[in-house]
Each structure stands twice: as C-alpha cells, then as structure tokens.
C-alpha cells in the first residue's frame, strides 16, 4: 500500500433510497453544494432493497468504498424497510470488519430528503476516508 | 441561591447517578414526591427540590441540607413517581458522598436519647447507624 495516496481518485458507489437520500442528493444539487465527484449513486426504492450481494459485487468490480443511505429509522417511506436494513447491514458490517475489511470502506448513513447539506458532508467525509485508505485491494477481482 | 456557571458541578450529578443507579435527569418536577412525603414538613430542601438542585448542579445547597438526614427511606415517593426515579436512593447517594468523603459519622451512640438507649428495638438502632454512620 502506498504511503501517500496522492492523486488517488477512489470510486465510491452509493445506494440511495428514492424517498430520502436520493432526494437529499437532489437537494444538495439544487443548493449547489459541491461535493466529491468520486461518488456514484444508484437509485433504489428503499434501503431495504439493497442486497448485501450488491455491495460485495461493487467491491469486486472495483469500488473503493460503498455507502448505503436511507431514511432515518422511523421515517421510512415504506414504514419499516430501513429497520430491516439496519439489522441486515449491521450484521454485514460486523462480518466485514471481522474479516479484516476496514470499517470505513463500507458505511451506512441515514440522510433525509431535507438534509442536502448532510448529504454533501457525508459524501465528502466518506471520500476523504477512502482516499486516506487507498484503493480497495482486498475485495477486488483480480481480473 | 444563584445558579452561575462557575458553581455548576456536574461531577456531583454524575457521582449521584452512579452511586444511586438513578437517572436524575428523568425528573420533570411534578412534585408528587414532596406532596406525599410523611416527614416533608421538617425538611429544608423538599424531595423534588433535591432532584432539581442535582439537575442544576447546586452542590453546596444539597450537601448542607438537613433533608438528607430526615428522609426515612419509606419509599412512598418512589412508589408514586411517574418517572421511575427512586429518590431514597438519590438521597442515600448524597449521604454516602458526605460520609465517605468526611469519614466521620453523623450519629454517635452517645447522642441517642436516653429512652432510645433503654427501649429501642435493635432493628431501629441498626437502621439508624446504617443511615447515619459508616
């Protein structure tokens, strides 16, 4: 691993729920809140649609970080979806850390549709952390 | 009495909460404890005020109050408290903080009234010394 990660532009895949976090991203956009261009968003109806397999797949295909963002617990558009997300991804995250994956690589955040500033802030902080970590080598396909 | 920044002692609040296992901040000052306390009339700081002072970090007022030595731990207040605060435990914690720090006893056998020395049941004596001395 390089000592400095100067010039490293990570790829961060963000799964955003349509009702809160994707709307939060839109609000960040409307408000012209600049954030790291390393982030690429995939729109899902609800964070509970995010299959752990999607997350692993993103890492395999070269993502350096994965973020899942959903409504705050209790505010799910679908009533309870993110409560399941919270359990599932807690377990997944615990496991990934246990397997020696840096905790910053895979993050889950709650960002509501009114939190444009938070969206930008989270994207920047995640991008910063991943930049510091350097490229994902552990989970990436060798091909 | 005045609440000023320099005077606020949150360490005491923390210590009280730790020793008593009670959440002092849960109290919303309904006063039901004080209303029902059988010995409230001789207290200088009323039970609900004990919690209020603790919330505000008013240490001196609490540690110098007579109230601490008047509470009989009869548990009437906590049996009615809508916020599940066990005030006898909070008061016990304050007593312990004093006794542990000072090391001295609040009650000496010689201070006991004569008739107590003659007739009182052991149960009462043991209780009193548990509360007033360490």
């Amino acid at each position: 691993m390089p000592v400095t990660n100067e010039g490293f532009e990570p790829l961060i895949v963000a799964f955003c729920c349509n009702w809160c976090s994707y709307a939060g991203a839109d609000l960040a956009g409307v408000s012209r809140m600049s954030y790291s261009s390393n982030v690429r968003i995939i729109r899902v109806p609800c964070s509970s649609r995010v299959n752990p397999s999607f997350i692993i797949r993103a890492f395999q295909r070269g993502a350096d970080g994965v973020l899942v963002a959903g409504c705050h617990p209790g505010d799910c558009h679908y009533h309870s979806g993110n409560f399941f997300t919270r359990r599932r991804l807690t377990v997944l995250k615990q496991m990934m850390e246990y397997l020696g994956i840096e905790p910053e690589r895979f993050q889950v955040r709650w960002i509501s549709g009114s939190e444009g500033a938070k969206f930008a802030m989270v994207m920047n902080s995640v991008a910063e952390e991943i930049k510091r970590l350097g490229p994902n080598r552990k989970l990436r396909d060798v091909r | 009495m005045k609440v000023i920044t320099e005077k606020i002692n949150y360490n005491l609040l923390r210590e009280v909460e730790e020793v008593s296992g009670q959440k002092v901040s849960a109290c919303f000052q309904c006063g039901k404890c004080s209303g029902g306390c059988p010995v409230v009339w001789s207290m200088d700081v009323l039970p609900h005020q004990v919690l209020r002072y603790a919330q505000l970090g008013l240490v001196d007022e609490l540690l110098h109050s007579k109230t601490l030595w008047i509470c009989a731990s009869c548990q009437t207040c906590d049996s009615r408290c809508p916020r599940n605060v066990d005030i006898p435990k909070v008061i016990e914690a304050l007593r312990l903080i004093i006794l542990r720090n000072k090391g001295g006893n609040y009650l000496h056998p010689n201070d006991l009234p004569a008739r107590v020395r003659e007739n009182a049941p052991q149960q009462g004596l043991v209780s009193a010394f548990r509360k007033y001395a360490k």
Partner: protein
Amino acid sequence: MQQKVEGYPLKEYTTKICQIAKEALENREVTAIIGWRKKDFWWQSPVVFLEDPADVQQLVWDPFTIYSPVKFLLDWQESCAAKVGIFVKGCDSRGINRLLQDKRLERERVAVYGVPCGGKADAEKIRASFPSKEIKSVTLIGEELVLAVGEREERVKAEAYLLDKCLSCRHPNPVVYDKLVWEEVSPRQYADESRFARVQAVESLVTEERFAYWQRQFDRCIRCFACRNTCPACNCRVCIFDQAEPRWLGKANDPADTLNYHIIRAFHVAGRCFECGECERICPAGVPLQELNRKLIKGINDAYGDYEAGLDPTDVPPLGTYRGEDPAGFDES
C-alpha cells in the same frame, strides 16, 4: 477387509435404536428409517436409509454417527408422500426445527426419534495418539473412550478426543422428538465459555491481521460447496450461487469470489445457524467456518438480545424482524 468392527459401542443405545426402527417399520408407522450404519473403517458411520425391517440390525450408534441425517428429509419429502422415521442427535434435532421454521418440512410426515448425545469422537485426534491401521473399534463409555488397538484395549478420557464442536455443544439433547431413545444427558461443563472463545481470539487481532488470517483460511477453500450442501439452514431449492442469470457468484476460484461466497453464505445463515458445526467439520480444506457463523450469532445476540436458532420453529429469525429501538452497528448520525 481388515477393520471389521466387532461389537458396536453403546450397545444398549444401538439395541434400542434397532428395536424402535423395527417396530416402526413393522407397524407401518413409517415406510423408511434414516439412521446410521457402520462402514469399512472404524471412523466411518455414514447415514443409511432402510425400508425393510429385516435390515434394521445394520443400525448403529457409536462415536462416529456424526453426520446429520436431517437434510435428507428434503429429498425424501419431495420424492414420496409416505412418512419416514429419523434418528436425531441434539444438533440434528435443531436442524429439524430449522427446516420446520423454513417451512421446508411437513412435521406430520416425519417420526423423530431423539437420541441424547454424549458427544462424538474426532478421528484425527485419535489418529494423532494411536496407529490408525491398528484400531479395530472405538467406543464411548460414559466419559471414557475405549479403543481396541491391535490386541490391547486402551481407555482414555473422552474429552480429549471429542470433536471440538461437541465440546461447545449447548444442546446435546434433542429439542424436538416424538420418541426419546434414551434418558437425557447434561451439557458439557465448558460449553458456554468455549462458545465464542475462538471468535474473541480473532476479534482481538488488528484489522490487517484479521484480513491476513482469513485470507490464509479462504486461500485453501476449493469451492466444493460441501459447507453449503451439508447445512440444514442452506435449504433453498435453488441456491443463489448456482444461478446463471443473474450470476451472483463467479465460478472461478479466485480470492474475491471466494470471499464473496463466504460472506454471503454466512449472511444467509445469520440468525438461522443453529451451531451444529458440520460446515467446519466436513470442510476438506479445514476452513474455520464456525468462527464466522458464531461471530454473527454473537453480534446478533449483543445487538438484539440473545437468540438461539433451532429451538422454536415458530420464531421469526432475528433478521426477519426488528424493533424500533434497535442499535445500529454503524454510524447512525
């Protein structure tokens, strides 16, 4: 063949098992029995399917009747409508509950005969102390393992020769059964303490050490899928890993895909694994899969309250439910 095993151990258990099987077949209570029999070597007691009452004498109960017969019920129920009788250990019985909870088993089509289990022997541990070729039989009597080695008889403390998974077994007695073959035994003394010991050891490593540790383990994985195929919690009709479209898991045995496999496998049994430990025991490459499963059990217990799978088939598994006040294992700000 040289290793004719003479006189099966735990004779009384075996006798009772044969008797129960015989009666059930003769009374036509069931049309087949699933149990264990002895094979060529002292360490082989594979699962056997019997339909003829005359064959029941094949059945045994010995320190090697380890392999769970439970998952075979899936095929059985798909292939015929008749009732089958099955002998189960404590761990196997939780597999029955696993299948029931997953609605993969019709309880009324199975007669469950529970066998309280004193633990099973680890052939590798025995081989390390005794010349394998000379061992003629191995019996468990109480807390002693009795071996016929060459012409002599060796008695050793069983605990040192039992499978690790049996030493940390919390439910040696069947938790669901129609008939109990023998009286219940008590769980091993250190079962609770040893349950998460290995998990904690790995947890105590720093991130890079943990990664190196697991890479070394997964590096040996040959992707034979034995861990999945043996697991009663892996009871999907068509496993996600076997699907071509979408192809969830690459077929190549490369490190990233192997990691993918192990993460998703463990995730799919999270909150459902009932700790039979077979995945790890039968892994030809010795990948410590139970450490991964138990890590998730520990994490779920810590976060959502203690839950043991396979005890009550009417439960909803922890990942199928939630509470509003659940803690999150990530930054919830």
